[in-house]
């Protein structure tokens, strides 16, 4: 990326300048605060059942992490691999669907002219303002009617779209995609869908990557709804890991070992998605 910049002109000092140490220092503070919960979770997950309550817990990890992790994985009640597979299916399918449908709709709202687009967008945003604490009941009645309870579909369907996603893609595309570019493609004879494919999509990529990440993580940690519609034979990770807390005295070394294991796939996803968040392709394309 910096290479591309330099190729454009060595004189452009402002945007290629390396920032000073204070930027790194400030970011480092943010990063330490971000990492702290993980380290703290690891401290307890590497201890024993009393670690979470231990006021004199050492800041140096204990040696039990692998043991605790294997207890969690081998616990038949946790059903770890099945739950992991289900979580991957649910999070991936909802994230893909949310990104695709939101990008399509967001592109339409941001750049295409059609009757009712304004009010419709307002309606989408307004639905976010209705608290969802009661939504579980009508949704359950619906899934029961569909006969989907117990199946992953009951978790996937409500996650296929979000008003948040559409609003986000609309705002991002309206900002980052110059209308001239669409017009140029249209003048060149591109059909609407080809224009979307060749102009809209590339512009939306960084936002889409982020939406994918957000949706994935949200679904990954979702508990109450999957708990209600799934059962122990077919759980997602938060549902199956919750069993570790089903005790009057909770062994948090196991709970947090489970939590950390469940976080590993997210970290892997981060490494992948992080690369997609590079500078908007459009930044130079107007001129190109």
């Amino acid at each position, binding site marked *: 990326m910096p290479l591309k910049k330099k190729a454009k002109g060595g004189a452009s000092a402002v945007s290629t300048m390396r920032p000073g140490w204070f*930027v790194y220092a400030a970011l480092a503070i943010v990063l330490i605060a971000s990492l702290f919960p993980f380290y703290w979770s690891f401290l307890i997950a590497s201890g024993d059942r009393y670690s979470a309550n231990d006021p004199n817990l050492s800041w140096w990890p204990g040696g039990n992490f692998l043991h605790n992790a294997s207890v969690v994985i081998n616990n038949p009640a946790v059903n770890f691999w099945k739950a992991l597979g289900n979580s991957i299916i649910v999070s991936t399918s909802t994230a893909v669907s949310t990104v695709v449908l939101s990008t399509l709709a967001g592109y339409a709202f941001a750049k295409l002219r059609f009757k009712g687009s304004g009010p419709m967008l307002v309606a989408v945003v307004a639905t976010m303002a209705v608290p969802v604490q009661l939504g579980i009941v009508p949704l359950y009645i619906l899934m029961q009617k569909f006969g989907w309870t117990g199946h992953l579909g009951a978790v996937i369907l409500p996650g296929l779209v979000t008003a948040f996603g559409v609003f986000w893609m609309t*705002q991002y595309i309206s900002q980052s995609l110059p209308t001239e570019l669409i017009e140029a493609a249209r003048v060149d004879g591109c059909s609407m869908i080809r224009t979307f494919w060749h102009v809209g999509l590339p512009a939306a990529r960084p936002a889409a990557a982020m939406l994918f990440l957000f949706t994935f993580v949200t679904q990954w*940690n979702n508990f109450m709804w999957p708990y209600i519609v799934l059962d122990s034979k077919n759980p997602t990770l938060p549902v199956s890991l919750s069993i570790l807390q089903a005790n009057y005295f909770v062994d948090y070394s196991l709970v947090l070992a489970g939590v950390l294991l469940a976080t590993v796939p997210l970290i892997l996803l981060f490494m992948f998605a992080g690369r997609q968040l590079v500078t908007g392709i459009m930044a130079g*394309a107007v001129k190109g």
Partner: protein
Amino acid sequence: MTTTQQQTEAPSPREPQRRRAPLTWRQRLGRLDVKLSPYLYIAPFWIVFAIVGLFPIVYTAVISFQDWDLVRNQGTLTGFDNFAFVLQDREFWMSLRNTFSIFLLSSVPQLIAATFIAAMLDKNIRAKTFWRMGVLLPYVVAPVAVALIFSNLFGDKYGLINTWLNDFGLPKIAWHVDVIPSHIAIATMVNFRWTGYNALILLAAMQAIPRDLYEAAAIDGAGAARRFFSVTLPQIRPTLIFVIITSTIGGLQVFDEPRMYDTRGNGGSNHQWETVTLYLYNEGWVNFNFGRAAAIAWILFLIIVAFGLLNFAITRRFIAGDAAPKKAKKKVKK
């Protein structure tokens, strides 16, 4: 790059399309394409959303006018009784106070911090992906870990923070007794989770700003701060509006953090940190008064919409007031 590619791939009969003469079937198709496409693009979203998004909302609306029995899924019409009750309930006004207090304590510092973090990440730093993803880490921490960590930090007696305060000879803070400290603690939990998240959203927007704008501004003699206020902020306005509106909506619906804040999860013995959504939840799931809970949902909806519009108007005026960026933009294009 992309544009050049399209030019070469574009269908060849370009000339006929420009003529004003009778429409060919292809042109008609083209018009249809223009007219229908937007609807086709939004249709998949609306179809699914109508089922899983709108249906629960309509359901909530319907039962808000009834004395609703959740289990039997039936009720008796009571008109505006539920709304009247809520508006006369002391608990509602307390929860509204708490909600706004927590909202202000969280959203304002959070957005300022997020903007600054985004601006730093937008600089040409080394190991970009590493820093970006690091900032988002709090968002992935499982709720159970968040609850554990913060109850360890904010314990009234043995909490880490009070222990430190004690070490410095300062008095302990009654995090779970006094109103404002409990709000600060909850706002901290909220900020911890969402600052990095909003920072990345703003970063994505900043990254889409053509770098030439900065160069042009720099040539015009604008310093770093001036560039930030005259180029960055106006350029990311749509995203800023997005962040402010979603933060308003999310902030006024804050639920998980106050619920996790103690083991009872009802907002404190004296409703110290009971937010409106927690009040809603208690009315519904604890008191089994679902009609009333639905009424609370709609009252909160109206408050959020009103507040969201206000924020929208302020944001718009505040950022649109600066004309500099438009000039800069034109300069670059020509």
